[in-house]
Structure formats: structure tokens, C-alpha cells
């Protein structure tokens, strides 16, 4: 990941991605598999320096994973379709509350049923919000979505039916399979030692061990990534790109831009809802406090910091936004200040994001060509 972050796609030399792309397929698969295993074991390895000192690393990793998921979803809206959404937390909340309401507050539906329902509920709310507002111009969309996020939160606070400010407790855990225990690694003596006292039970979704939830989230991220890759490379992805670059031109070429924008909105909302559902599952308790407007802004920051439009970039962005404040808890009161400074510095020195999409470079070139043409056009 960090190698990728330093690779500059604009340079002509082979970047990280090119080098990976050039490897034989078998090596590629092996590399990916090793990387996946590493990710799965990460919370148990307790690698010094990476592991968060102030808070449980498994819990932090789960939080990071939800951010990654959210960033992937928001990337479809902001990065692919170019729609500025400042109220994404609304969908996240809808996902979480669907789980809470149907499995604890007013129903006893099982987790397996509730999560798909949460996705559907978020998706429907995306369509309901998008259908009337996506015709509004881009900058207005920002404030409309921001308003939507607040409407959702205030509704949660003020409707007794949804638990009000008290929130919803005792949200049931997903069914687990208690297969075997995985030990963790202890570094306190300086060298890695297998610590048989601190273990995680494989797929036991308890309240005291977040590692299985992290594993669950990793699997979900994998699936969403796969989905993301398929959609992006399809006709839909190209339609989004055309819409984002020049909506009028896309419309002229026969792309029903409104429908594609709405689709992006709905898909983004669905992933946001899924992420919220996972969050509710893990914490077992939700209240409106967890869905403040500020979270929307952090989500957006994750996408833009990482590089809107590049799925790997937004993942890096999500990690930056969610991991660093936990890792550097010792900054305590100064965390937000430092985070703000970091955002400003990033914006100034890395305006395309940490990992800009390769498209940006291409689109930029197209823009230049168009600028020349436009000036030429004037002299016809």
C-alpha cells in the first residue's frame, strides 16, 4: 500500500501498478493471497508501531474497515459520478437503524435477513432523495444532501419509535461458528512470541473480541471491491465517466445522465447502508450521536484525500482518516487540530489526492485538447 502511495502515475517510469500488472498471473494471485492472509492476521500480529496503543487494535481495525467500506461507496457517488454528497452519513445511519429496529427495537429478525434489508432500505432512501434532487446543479446538491443527513439524524433523535436519543441496545450478533482459536503474537519481550493467552475464536461473534467482526468486514470489502471493479469497467462505469466529464455532451451522445446519476446514488447509498449495518452489528448499541454531520465530512475527506475516482486511493484515504486519529491518541486534545492541518497540507501539496485515478491524467489531457479546440471554434 505504501509503495503504491508513492508511485506517481504521471511519471513515465513503471509505477507500482504497472510492475504488479507485468507479473505472471500465478505470481499475482500468490501476491494477493499473501496480502489477504496478512490483512486477516493483522489484528493478531500486534506489530509494534502499527498497533494502536491507546485502544484495542481489533476494534480500531474494524472501524478502519467500516470507513474503507464507506469510502468505496461514497467513491461511486463522488469519484465516479462526480456528485458532491455531504450527507452520506444519512445512508450509513439508515443501514444501522434498519438493523437496530428490525432485530432489536421492534422485531426479532435474524441478522442474515436484516442486513440485506438494511441495504435495500438505504438504497430506496437513496432513490427517494436522489430522484427529486439530482436535477439540481452540483453545488446545490452539496447543501441538499447535507440537509438530508441532518434530517435523518434529527428524526432519529426525535422519534420515540426509533429509540430517540436513548438509541437501541442489545442488537443481536450474527450467528457464528466457533471452530478454533487463533492465538496472537506478543512483542513485549522485543521479539515476536506466540501468545496463547490472548486468542480469537474463529467466527465467534462475541462482545469482547472485535477480530471476527473485522474478518467479516474484510470479506464484505472484498466482495464490494469485486462488485466495484465489475461495475466500473462496464458500460455503466463509462456512462458515469462521460457524465462527470461533461454532462451536456453525454446527454447529447445518448447517455441518460439522470438515470445513471440516480443509479450511482442508489449504489453508493446501498454500500453506505451495508457499512452502517456492520457497524450496528458490531457495537450492539446505536444512538443518534454516532451519526453526526461531522462524520459525513470525514467520509468525504477520506475519498478526496485518497483520490476521488480511484478505488485504491479512497481505501488509503479511509485508512488515513480513521486510523491516524486512533494511532496518535497521545495527541489527545490536539488530534482534530493536527487532522485539520494535515487536510490543508494534503490539499495544497497533493491536490489530486494521495493516489489520483489514472483517469485524471487522461482527462486532463482531453481538457487541454478541448481548450485548444474551443479557442479554435471561436474563429470559425
Amino acid at each position, binding site marked *: 500500500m505504501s509503495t503504491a502511495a508513492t508511485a506517481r502515475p504521471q511519471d513515465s517510469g513503471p509505477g507500482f501498478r504497472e510492475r504488479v500488472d507485468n507479473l505472471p498471473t500465478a505470481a499475482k494471485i500468490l501476491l494477493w493471497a499473501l496480502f489477504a492472509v496478512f490483512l486477516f492476521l493483522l489484528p493478531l500480529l500486534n506489530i509494534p508501531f502499527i498497533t494502536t496503543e491507546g485502544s484495542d487494535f481489533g476494534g480500531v481495525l474494524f472501524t478502519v474497515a467500516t470507513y474503507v467500506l464507506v469510502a468505496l461507496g461514497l467513491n461511486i457517488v463522488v469519484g465516479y459520478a462526480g456528485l458532491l454528497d455531504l450527507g452520506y452519513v444519512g445512508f450509513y445511519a439508515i443501514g444501522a437503524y434498519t438493523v437496530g429496529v428490525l432485530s432489536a427495537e421492534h422485531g426479532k429478525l435474524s441478522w442474515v435477513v436484516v442486513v440485506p434489508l438494511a441495504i435495500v432500505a438505504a438504497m430506496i432512501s437513496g432513490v427517494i432523495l436522489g430522484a427529486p434532487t439530482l436535477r439540481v446543479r452540483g453545488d446545490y446538491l452539496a447543501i441538499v444532501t447535507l440537509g*438530508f443527513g441532518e434530517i435523518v439524524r434529527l428524526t432519529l433523535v426525535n422519534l420515540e419509535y426509533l429509540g430517540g436519543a436513548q438509541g437501541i441496545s442489545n442488537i443481536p450478533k450474527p450467528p457464528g461458528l466457533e471452530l478454533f482459536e487463533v492465538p496472537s503474537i506478543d512483542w513485549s519481550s522485543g521479539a515476536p512470541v506466540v501468545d496463547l493467552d490472548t486468542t480469537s475464536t474463529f467466527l465467534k461473534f462475541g462482545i469482547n473480541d472485535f477480530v471476527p467482526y473485522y474478518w467479516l468486514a474484510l470479506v464484505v470489502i472484498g466482495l464490494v471491491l469485486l462488485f466495484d471493479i465489475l461495475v466500473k469497467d462496464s458500460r455503466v462505469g463509462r456512462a458515469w465517466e462521460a457524465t462527470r466529464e461533461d454532462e451536456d455532451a453525454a446527454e447529447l451522445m445518448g447517455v441518460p445522465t439522470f438515470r445513471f446519476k440516480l443509479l450511482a446514488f442508489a449504489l453508493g447509498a446501498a454500500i453506505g447502508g451495508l457499512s452502517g449495518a456492520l457497524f450496528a452489528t458490531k457495537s450492539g448499541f446505536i444512538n443518534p450521536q454516532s451519526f453526526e*454531520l461531522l462524520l459525513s465530512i470525514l467520509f468525504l475527506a477520506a475519498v478526496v484525500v485518497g483520490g476521488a475516482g480511484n478505488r485504491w486511493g479512497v481505501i488509503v484515504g479511509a485508512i488515513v482518516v480513521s486510523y491516524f486519529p486512533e494511532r496518535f491518541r497521545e495527541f489527545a486534545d490536539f488530534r482534530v487540530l493536527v487532522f*485539520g492541518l494535515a*487536510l490543508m497540507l494534503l490539499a495544497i501539496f497533493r491536490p489530486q489526492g494521495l493516489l489520483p485515478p489514472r483517469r485524471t491524467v487522461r482527462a486532463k489531457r482531453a481538457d487541454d485538447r478541448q481548450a485548444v479546440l474551443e479557442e479554435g471554434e471561436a474563429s470559425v
Partner: protein
Amino acid sequence: MQFLIDNFAALTVTGLTLGAIYALVALGYTLVYGVLRLINFAHSEVFMYGTFAALWVVMLLGGRPGAGVGPVVFWVAMMFVAAMAVSGLIAVLLERVAYRPLRKRNAPPLIALISAIGASFVLAEIMGLRSRIVAWVGLEENLRDYVRNSRNNAGMPTIISPQPIFTVGGYNVTNVDIFVIIGAIVLMVVLDQFVKRSRLGRGIRAVAMDPEAAALMGVNRDRVIQVTFLVGGVMAGAAAAFYMLKIGITRYDAGFILGVKAFTAAVLGGIGNLRGALVGGFVLGLAENYGSALVGSQWKDVVAFVLLILILLFRPTGLLGESLGKARA
């Protein structure tokens, strides 16, 4: 409903007072949007610094309730001077640090928003951590009254105690109400005339309409942008002073919600349109009050946002449309 009818006058006057403050803050969003086409997310912090400037200057001058006309006029005047100066300064600084470097690098507009968000965090946190910062510098003893409980509310002595001036529909309109509403309208008119008639004002309009043609006329875009931030900041500072007269309590995060509301007001009236900001502010202030009366205060913000969505659906460019700049469609 009966309640709304019975207390219509009271709700209207207090709604207009609040709306006036929204409108003044909204001007900053509208002006910057007009010339730069970007949402100055950190404008809320510009307002917040103004509230503290107003508060501190009153504390410094020993403001207290029940003083004579002379001192009160002096305190109020100093409040406005301090708040407008500080807010104007912060706004200009913000432009210098958070926006200009990006403009020089031709960064995409979304990144300007991120920079603004970062700046907003930094500004709010500096205020929220002021006790720690002051302790570092070693001025704890001298500044204790100003930095106490920096994460908490900071209240100002009531220097003008509200006195009923006349009665409308059973509501006693107070001197503060009148001062805020009239004051805000006067400032708006002054600004409107400034933008319309002065050379720099014309420069602002020219840049908003067509930056290239403006440059060909000799308009220095950087300077115009700076003036725009300054003017927006000064207006936010005036809003902050009015706010402190009316509400009297501020906090390091007081800007956020008010900023969101003011931005809503700007969009409601038609962003980029100065008169739109005035109309949007008043409409929003009234709607919030009437809405609170009808469905309960807890739905106040929901009323505001639902109104916004409805208006944008039927009038996609706001109530008065965009006028500061139409050129770049």
C-alpha cells in the same frame, strides 16, 4: 396552529432578528461563491472568531449591565469594530493560507473544499484549545478570564438590556430586536451600494461575471478575491456582534450550525445574489420560528432543510436566482 396565530407577531419579530443574522453571514458565502465558485466551508469559523472578538472587547472595556447611554454606545461601537476587524482579518488570512496556494496550482474545486474543511477544523480547534495555547505561551495568569473553560460556553455581560419600545400584536418589540433588524438591513444596503457603485465593487462583479474579460480591463483578480473575503468577513463580524447582543453566549464550535444555516439561507435566496442572501436569511428565520411553533422546536432544523429542498425543487436557482455572476454557466 392556534398558538402560531396567537403569537404571530412575537414569532415574526424574533424570526426576523435571527434571519438578519443568518443573512449577514450568508453574504460571505454568496460573495465568495460569486467570484470563486466554491463553498467557503470555513466561513462559519470567521463568524465564530467575530463573536469572541466582540465578547473579549466588552470584557476588556469592563462592560456591565445598567450603564448609562454614553458607555453603552461606546461598548457597542467597540464591539462592532473589534468583531468586524477580527472576522475580516481571519477571512483574509483564510484566503491566503487555504485557498490561494490551491488556486496557484489549479487544484480541482473539490480539493478546495477539503482545504476549507481542514482550515475550519484548525480555526475551531485553536479557539477550543485556547487555554492550552495560552498556557504554553505562559500568559495563563493574565488571560485567565478570557480562556477559562475553552471547550465550554463563554458568556458576555448584557450591556443593552432589552427594553420594550412598542407593541405589535401583543408582542413587545425590544430595542435589541429593532437594532439587529435595522442594523442588518442598513449594512446590506451599504454593501449593495458598495458592490454596485464603487470601483472595487465593480471589480468584484466583473470577476464574478467573466474573470478573463475582467483581467483585460485591468482588474487584479487576486486583489478582488482578497477584497471579497474581507467584505464577507466584515459582514460576518457584524453578524457576530449582533449575535452577541442578542444571544450573548458563544463557544468554539458555535460557528458550525450557524454556518450551515447561513449557507442554507444563501442557497435559498439564490447563491451569488446579494439581495437573495437577505431574502433567504429572513425567509429561513421566519420559517424556523413558525415551524417550531407548529410542530415543536425539536423539528426546527428539519423545517429549515425541508423548506430548502422544496424551494430548490421548484426554483432550482433559489428564490431570486443568481445574479452576481451568470457568465460561467
